[in-house]
């Protein structure tokens, strides 16, 4: 039944080819070559880079024992022994130097690092992050709480053309008290967003970090982060803030002690990763272990299937008119606008001891 692809193509008019997402073309693996003598060359050659879209170089600091001082910052992967055994006029002294080298290439999962960026999801998640922990503690003043003096007659009795009043604290005055209930329980603004939206926002922010060149993969999380990030700062941006991700709360102790003194390096566990922090800090520094763990957790969330969530029950559209027909003025009260904002606040002492 299926005609050959050639016949089908022959019938098609010429169409505009538009390359869209990063996973549009799947070329074969191209050979990797980083032939850079100076740091500027990296930028010049970036447009001709032969990285396939989902790979990123892993940098690390290695200790070299060289017979002559090494001047190049970036070296080729295949280190020619002939270069390092140059004979100098000075006496040959073994020098131990620490250099930033590219130790290899890591492959990233396209669903996380080249996902479609969903700006709506990012916006909703940021709004949620800013408001879900807030509590509305506003209240209305009673007569004693307005700033006006009590029992200070503004004008004596009748004859001045104004109403008789005892003081300026009443509701009829600007800046006076209110007539309704002055106090009400605190209303919490706690609400949760769909898990799908939050995952999409996280994945979008990670994609942005990778595609904008703000992601640094390191072979070993340690003090070497400082030198690596400075060497990779090709555009010479001043005052970069770094987000260093670790798998757990149990950070390696030397790293933790070193970062305590640093102002612009911030340690995060993977559980603490959120959209707001990803957008706030300039660079993201990852370890290979952390990358694996992060990808595993995110892929689980992307690919999971909860049968109970697969079907939803939409609210009946007639509910609002139903509620308003039952209640007359109660529906307009501020504390009756919905479930979580209701005035029937359950304080913690009334919660059961075990759920």
């Amino acid at each position, binding site marked *: *039944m*299926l*005609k050959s*692809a050639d016949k*089908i*193509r022959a*019938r*098609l*008019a010429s*169409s*505009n*080819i*538009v*390359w*869209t*997402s990063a*996973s*549009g*073309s*799947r*070329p*074969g693996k191209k050979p990797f070559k980083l032939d850079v003598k100076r740091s500027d060359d990296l930028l010049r050659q970036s447009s001709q880079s032969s990285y396939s879209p989902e790979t990123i170089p892993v940098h690390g600091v290695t200790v070299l024992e060289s017979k002559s001082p090494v001047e190049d910052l970036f070296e080729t992967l295949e280190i020619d022994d002939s270069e390092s055994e140059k004979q100098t006029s000075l006496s040959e002294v073994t020098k131990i130097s620490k250099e930033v080298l590219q130790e290899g290439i890591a492959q990233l999962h396209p669903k996380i690092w080249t996902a*479609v960026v969903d700006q709506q999801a990012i916006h909703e998640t940021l709004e949620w992050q800013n408001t879900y922990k807030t509590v509305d503690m506003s209240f209305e003043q009673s007569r004693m709480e307005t700033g006006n003096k009590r029992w200070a007659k503004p004008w004596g009795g009748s004859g001045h053309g104004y109403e008789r009043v005892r003081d300026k604290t009443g509701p009829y005055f600007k800046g006076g008290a209110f007539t309704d209930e002055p106090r009400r329980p605190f209303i919490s603004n706690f609400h949760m967003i769909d898990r799908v939206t939050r995952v999409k926002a996280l994945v979008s922010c990670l994609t942005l970090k990778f595609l904008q060149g703000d992601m640094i993969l390191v072979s070993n999380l340690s003090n070497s982060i400082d030198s690596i990030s400075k060497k990779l700062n090709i555009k010479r941006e001043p005052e970069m803030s770094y987000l260093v991700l670790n798998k757990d709360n149990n950070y390696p102790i030397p790293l933790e002690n070193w970062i305590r003194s640093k102002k612009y390096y911030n340690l995060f566990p993977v559980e603490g990763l959120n959209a707001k922090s990803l957008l706030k800090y300039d660079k993201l520094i990852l370890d290979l272990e952390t990358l694996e763990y992060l990808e595993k957790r995110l892929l*689980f969330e*992307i*690919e*999971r*299937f*909860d*049968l*109970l969530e697969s079907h939803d029950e939409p609210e009946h*559209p*007639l509910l*609002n*008119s139903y509620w308003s027909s039952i209640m007359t003025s109660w529906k307009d009260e501020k504390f009756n606008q919905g479930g979580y904002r209701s005035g029937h606040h359950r304080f913690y002492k009334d919660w*059961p*001891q*075990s759920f």
Partner: protein
Amino acid sequence: MLRASNIRKLASSAQVKNINPWKFVEDILPPIQIPTPDMNQKFPTPTGWQPPSPDLQTFDYPYFVERNRFHELDLVEEERSTEFFDLNYDNRYQDKHDIALRRRNPSDDMPVTHLYNCSGDIFQLRNEICAYLEEISGEPVAGQADEPEARITVTGKYSDFIRDFLYDKGF
């Protein structure tokens, strides 16, 4: 005698702690993690499922159709009824929306097929799919390529034919 202290004791007794109220539901629910399919069987399976071919990258198509998390091609058929009032912006018409939905003529609904997770040159893929479907059905078939949504929409219910077409391509 029934006292408040007695009630608190009942709530924290061992009998109440050991009850798992979700026991019968947990036995019925499937696991959360979707299993990978068994690749040691003969394809296509009796139901007609086929995995993507292992040489897919060598074919070098300008477009690509991914599989969804259930390892299937995401084909959805829909009956598009005419839209009335937009409840997202105005909920005064919620009653009238309900009434109009019930009183509409179902033969005015348009049958439509969606294909998700398309990337690359979606327009060429749409042209090819439409040409193939027109050959089969003999009637004109309209197709919409939506790039930000990664979706191709086709008038008519052709999900099985599109699936065969894509299986033959190797997606």
